[in-house]
């Protein structure tokens, strides 16, 4: 089980980075270009969801990979 936890750590890091890139380039950038009321979701994607998911998930994955959750 601990091996699975550690291997999945790499998946969470990849998922975090991938989600961040997707949210910024495929969701936020077109909305920034549109402007107006679309700036609200653009701001949310860029400054809230993308950093939260990419940094948070990657850090979680890093800890998992390091074996920090082995004894939980």
């Amino acid at each position: 089980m601990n091996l699975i936890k550690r291997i999945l750590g790499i998946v969470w890091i990849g998922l975090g980075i991938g989600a961040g890139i997707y949210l910024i380039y495929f969701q936020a950038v077109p909305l920034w270009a549109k402007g107006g009321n679309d700036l609200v979701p653009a701001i949310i994607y860029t400054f809230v969801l993308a950093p939260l998911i990419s940094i948070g998930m990657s850090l979680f994955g890093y800890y998992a990979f390091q074996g920090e959750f082995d004894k939980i």
Partner: protein
Amino acid sequence: MQTKKQSLAYIISASSVGTLIEWYDFYIFGSLATVLSTKFFPTDNPTAAFLNTLATFAAGFVVRPFGALVFGRLGDLIGRKYTFMVTLMLMGGATFAIGLIPSYATIGAWAPILVLTLRLLQGLALGGEYGGAATYVAEHAPPERRGFFTSWIQTTATLGLVISLAVIMLTRASLSKEAFDDYGWRIPFLVSIIMVLVSLLIRKNMEESPMFEQAKMEGKISKNPLKESFGNKLNLKYVLLALFGATMGQGLVWYTGQFYAQTFLLKICNLDDIQTNMILVIGLLLGTPLFVIFGALSDKIGRKGIMMAGMIIAIFSYRPIFDQMYKTVDITHKTVVPGSEKMILSGKTTTVSKEFTDGSSYKNVITEVSTDKTESKITIKINKTDQWTLIGYVFCLISFVTMAYGPIAAFLVEMFPTKIRYTSMSLPYHIGNGVFGGLMPAIATFLVSNANAAGTLEKPYLEGLNYPIALISVCVVIGIIYIKSDKKASL
């Protein structure tokens, strides 16, 4: 023993009433968003319209984790009781003040700025309240019944919505439409101050949490809860685990079942707003006792299993349930009563209406906004049988919420030590619920409108569900693999 039981009942009631009022305050803003937008955010002013979208859909939710940090720190430094007295006053004051703000027509740009600022204060207060109440009750409860006692706090979020809808419906029913639009909408905000004052009087007599008092006497209070919670890898990893393995999924199940169901019926199915609110209120009231049942059950069979089961059922049920909800309201397969179709022209407004053999009706009010732009407002009313069918679907959605949300307070308080509990449990809770969950209805509606615009999907109205289903799935995998099955934890 009897005295202890009574005092515990008092502790739960006093904590729950305050939290209930905070939820009420937070929800009336959303429930009255349409009226507020006409008073404070004129559509011909792009900046005001932008602030409206920000205030209505994002600000109150996004700021909640900051409230969790500010008040969580305070709660771990000076005590639980005083901190959630402050959050209650802040919430009550901000809500009351919204009811007093002069309209845009009177004070111009100050109106939307003040409303947005007060909405931010509401979000901050809510961010501090929940963690305090949950921690306070949990620290009084016996370990073997912690899930049951904290589940009463969990009911307040749903009952707060029911009360907010009831007060608004009652105010509307007591006044003419003109009077409600003129001043009546302020009443639900102003009424809040009475409820807050009563709650403050009740809470004033409460004693500090025994665990916090003991930690204080032994000099074990944290000197810097923020640093200890998030600067220490040992605690930070638990914060991340609580977020990605529990509260993210739980928040999404909650907001999909309770709030997106409302948005879906109103904006995507175009169901009449009174019918929508009635369906929601009845579904919520029927489902609320399940919070306590699942909370109590979590004391017997463990918290993780119930929460994960609720999330897994939600993942596989959302698309079929929302599909059936849409089809129940959809008029395209219904038979029109011969001769019932009418078109009335009045100035720049055209009203098209028709009735169906099953008792449903359709009305479309098309207004010419400018020479090249028209606005259309479709309203569908359904028969009693279909209303009960929708109540049944909402009840199913709420039952998933109760599984995921009922045991979460006990689960979170058991993850962290007394000295940093308020801070550490509040942050993942409010990121999961305020950010991932709170933004869900707006993001899902946005995804549906994009799918409608693309016009390539068979069921574009279900596209909004992709967001919660994807994130809940990740949460379930993390929760099952990384969260240990429960231990009967002493705090």
